């Protein structure tokens, strides 16, 4: 299938090469083409068509096309809007905390310090551990009666907090935990960013009498712009897809206060068995990620002078 498409392409653009290409290339790309068709393009098409239809689970076929009715339902579904709101809380809290935290730590590690590799290794530990283990661990640390976090807070006189059982703060608790997890990741990315800034440029600025703060905001920060934009884009894609932490730490509760968009998709599709509507939510997540990414590029991308 893909072979036909790619051949067609060549006939127009490079006719002179039509006879002189390496047939063996077909063998080299065959596994990729087959896998991509089976596990990416076909399901993607099914997801989009499925959002417009009633979907039978057993036969994996569309029983009846329902037009935009799933989308009408989506727009009028308070549960969906609550999940959007929950994901937005996470988006607003977790991303700035994790990214600014990472920039801050990277800035410290970029100076001449003892045991930099050790610090780097320690900060990165949560990144490699895996979210299931950490979600379970934090679920336990967040316990309100005998959790370690409330105990540590009580030492400085803070009343016990119902981290995962008070509907008004569950999303905040999850965001904090995830920010803790991701700081190490952004630290490493920004450390690479800082180290790519030429030392000569910084020295020249110092000779001109700029102090450290001026150097940071006038030189380092603008030069870091591509790194910052990259991090924000990655963080956005992850933020709107977050599933493991709310699923394991709260199950989406209490009262749906931590049901993120992906968690809603999972519940609708695999607990209520409404595949068509679940697909609609999937498409909505895709659109939200796409639109947010474009807006963010517009907002944060700067030309480097």
């Amino acid at each position, binding site marked *: 299938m893909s072979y036909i498409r790619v051949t067609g392409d060549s006939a127009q653009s490079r006719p002179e090469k039509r006879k002189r290409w390496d047939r063996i290339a077909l063998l080299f790309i065959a596994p990729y083409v087959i896998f991509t068709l089976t596990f990416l393009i076909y399901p993607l098409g099914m997801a989009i068509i499925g959002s417009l239809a009633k979907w039978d689970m057993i036969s994996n076929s569309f029983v009846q096309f329902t037009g935009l009715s799933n989308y009408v339902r989506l727009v009028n579904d308070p549960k969906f809007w609550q999940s959007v709101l929950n994901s937005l809380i996470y988006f607003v809290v977790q991303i700035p905390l994790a990214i600014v935290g990472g920039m801050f730590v990277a800035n410290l590690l970029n100076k001449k310090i003892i045991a930099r590799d050790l610090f780097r290794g320690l900060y990165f530990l949560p990144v490699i551990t895996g979210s299931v283990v950490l979600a379970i661990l934090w679920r336990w640390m967040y316990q309100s009666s005998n959790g370690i976090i409330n105990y540590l807070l009580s030492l400085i006189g803070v009343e016990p907090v119902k981290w995962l059982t008070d509907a008004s703060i569950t999303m905040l608790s999850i965001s904090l935990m995830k920010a803790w997890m991701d700081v190490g990741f952004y630290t490493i990315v920004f450390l690479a960013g800082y180290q790519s800034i030429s030392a000569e440029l910084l020295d020249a600025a110092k000779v001109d009498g700029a102090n450290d703060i001026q150097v940071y905001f006038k030189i380092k920060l603008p030069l870091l712009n591509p790194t910052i934009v990259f991090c924000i884009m990655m963080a956005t894609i992850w933020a709107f897809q977050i599933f493991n932490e709310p699923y394991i730490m709260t199950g989406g509760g209490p009262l749906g206060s931590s049901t993120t968009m992906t968690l809603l998709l999972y519940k609708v599709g695999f607990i209520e068995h409404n595949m068509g509507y679940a697909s609609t939510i999937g498409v909505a997540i*895709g659109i939200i990620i796409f639109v947010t990414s474009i807006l963010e590029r517009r907002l944060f991308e700067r030309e480097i002078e």
Partner: protein
Amino acid sequence: MTIRARAINRGRGTPGLWSVLGKVLMYLVLIGGAISSLFPFYWMISSSFKITNEIMQVPPNIIPTSLVLDNYHYVFSTMNVWQTFLNSLIVSGSTVLLNALFSGMVAYALVKLVFPGSKLLFMLVLAFMMIPGQLMTVPLFLQINRMGLLGTYPAMFLPGAVSSFSIFLFRQAMLSVPNDYIDAAKIDGSSHIYIFFRIIMPLIVPTLITVIIINFFWSWNSYLWPMMVTVGKDHMATMPVALDRYRTLHAVRWGATMAGCVLTAAPIMVLYLILQRQFIESIALSGIKG
């Protein structure tokens, strides 16, 4: 931040009081951060060795007073740890192997072979990187179901067998291998398959390691997908999936659950200790995480 930065600046050349204070403050911040990174792990490990009474005790002891293996005995007797570990190893191993092989092959074709549509193929590879995986969850599940693969190893490793990012990494590495090597080998009568396995791959081992680490890390920690395809087939579950099922079944046994957490995290942590630098560089490069 402000005060510290100024202090360091002023102290340059002659290490004065401010400079020393600034340094001290900086190390205090760094050490504080390191402690908050580490403390949850300390808590996980120390709890896994505590007796049940001490675990449920209010207020909790920061320094444990008991050190027993009860929780580990309990986990091994109530959860099929070795089978689960083997499942994880098979799924992660297959993912890594297939992914490295298939992605490397595509990259070789894109960089070193002439074929119609290679530019288009590369553009598609890049475009697929942008598609969020959640979008496909439902149809992929139904498809695996209809293929009769639910609850099998292939259900878990096949969807991860190719990835745009691995192709991208391999492509970057292969671009830096001079074409002369390939031309010389061709004159000697070597086939492209021989050149790929015996000449190109050995030249780009660092990239191969990066691809292996990223895919291993990703598939070892993967949760939603293996959880969905092993519903009702507990003996096929991978470590993270089995761990969370275990937690829901033994909700009051926090000590045993923590022991399970330690066992699940242990393999990847040991790898991290050995290959710390490669791990950090690979994962920071990839921007992929569970």
